[in-house]
């Protein structure tokens, strides 16, 4: 069955152990630190960094509130990126991860446009570039291991298990702790539902989560067009052939007159 993750942002202490273990498991090189005005480093996810902790400062009841947000691929239930890919390089696997096969990829970057979360990144500096993004540690999951970042987390911010159980756990926590969380599990409905779901003490838009993403599966939007193609083929061919036959007959009649 499909796996899922519940991220309880109230538990994160911003240690960034997850970032380090992600780099380690994926054997990715360290990048030069960029100062960007806060402690988020690197400031944005990129082809060398699949996950990072975003340090977000907001104001609540007159005082500052610090939040630490873990960013990575959400692994949608029906991912826009996979539906967009013209060569099947991105695929949704049964156990949950959305995986990438470089050998198929042509580098058209439609996945980057399709993803509402801006997750697929590109190796812009390379001559033969890959699309890069969090793999949900698909090999580890296949071997019944917990993803590297979750394994490392010292505070239990993230819990990993069956997707349905994670959603239920999220609801239970909101019910059991009135006032602690906003009444919204981010990822339950966004883009038709994602494998990674979040609980937060402050509204999600404060945390830089995109709250304008529709609560429906995005591939349905393009399928609505593709599904009509056979009908268009039929109509154009029949109407075209009929028109040709009629105009030709009229013309022949004109000639006879």
């Amino acid at each position: 069955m499909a796996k899922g993750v519940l991220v309880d942002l109230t538990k994160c202490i911003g240690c960034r152990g997850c970032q380090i273990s992600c780099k380690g498991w994926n054997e990715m090189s360290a990048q030069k630190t960029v100062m960007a005005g806060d402690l988020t480093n690197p400031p944005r996810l990129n082809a060398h960094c699949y996950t990072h902790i975003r340090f977000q400062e907001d104001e609540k009841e007159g005082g500052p509130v610090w939040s630490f947000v873990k960013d990575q691929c959400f692994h949608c239930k029906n991912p826009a990126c996979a539906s967009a890919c013209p060569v099947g390089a991105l695929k949704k696997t049964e156990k949950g991860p959305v995986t990438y096969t470089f050998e198929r990829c042509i580098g058209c970057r439609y996945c980057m446009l399709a993803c509402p979360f801006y997750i697929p990144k590109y190796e812009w500096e390379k001559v033969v570039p890959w699309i890069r993004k969090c793999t949900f540690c698909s090999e580890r999951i296949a071997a019944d291991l917990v993803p590297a970042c979750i394994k490392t987390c010292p505070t239990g911010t993230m819990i990993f298990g069956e997707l349905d159980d994670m959603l239920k756990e999220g609801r239970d926590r909101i019910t059991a702790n009135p006032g602690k969380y906003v009444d919204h599990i981010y990822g339950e409905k966004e883009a038709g539902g994602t494998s990674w779901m979040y609980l937060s003490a402050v509204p999600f838009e404060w945390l830089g989560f995109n709250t304008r993403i529709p609560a429906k599966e995005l591939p349905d939007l393009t399928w609505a067009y593709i599904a009509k193609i056979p009908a268009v083929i039929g109509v154009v061919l029949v109407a075209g052939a009929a028109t040709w036959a009629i105009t030709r007959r009229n013309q022949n009649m004109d000639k006879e007159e």
Partner: protein
Amino acid sequence: MTSHKDIKMWTPTTLVLLLIMGLGGLVIIYRLMHGLGAATNLNDRFPWGLWIGIDVLGGVAMAAGGFLIAGAVYILNWKKYKPIVRPAILNAFFGYALAATAIMFDIGVPWRVWHPVVMWQIHSIMWVVAIHVVLYTTTLATESSPMIFEKLKMEGAKKTVYAIMVPIVLFGVLLSTLHQSSLGAVYLIAPAKLSPLWYSSQLPTLFLVSAVMMGLSMVSLETILSSRAFNHKPDMAILSGLARGTLIAAVIYLTLKFIKLFKGGIGMAFDGSMEANMYLLEMAVGTIAPIVLLFMKNIRENLNSILFVDTLVIAGIILNRLNVSIFGVYRDQAATGLSYFPSWMEFVVTLAFISFSIVGFKVCAKYLRLFPETEGGH
């Protein structure tokens, strides 16, 4: 008698165009050796830029004249347009060549450009687009081939193509309808990114209708310009027919755009934001002004004013494609501080592709029988 041998090849304009093409060639070599990051200003928030906006979306829209004129002549039997069927198809071929070549250098792994042909993904709009580029470019080459066979004096081959021309043209009409609309459908997947000024479930229809406007204007513009260059009188009946066609398509387009705007709240077009202003500019230049002008009969029958309206429509629809691909997604994509303005190399390559189309068209006009009907006695 057979072709326009008297066309002067080495004019200063042609030399400048060749220079730009040479420079573009060098930039493409640089891009292939050092990657997209070195040659372009594209980034993780702006995966598509000028090459997709103008070369691909604009190039394909420009090519719509080919299927329209071929359909009018071979399916509707509107013989009036026969004199422009060859230039219209050739123009379409250059439009598609422009788009296909631009895609080749825009994708990260150009030598895998054939992958969609064997790795079918029927759920992917990009796959649908890719298959149509392949099929329609082949169709256009077939439709243009009689000119080449003529040149090579292969009468048998020419006769064979003409014998199957009607089904080929019908196939071309079908592919174009699907391809023009599927380019609009590409953006259906991004409801949270593309501004509601342009995002609509009607994007495929809007792309198709606006391509009809642009295609007809393109054919008209080309007919006027080449008649000047080759010193023959353009057929006013053809030109005002094309102008009427553009007018009808523009009225349909404006109606669809208005319905969309009223549904989404008309205020969004007048809130003074960058998107709203780009939207107003696009609609004023490419749709409203041409409709107002073309409604006047004396404008539809004057060579210079038709040329002016053609230019407006072409500029307006290219602006529409840029709005959908860059300006309309700008606010969302630039939200985390990354921005995009094309590099000089992106501009050079785009200009080089346009130059190639102009010079290529000129070479064909010189050596092939592009305007057989105007040669007198034929």
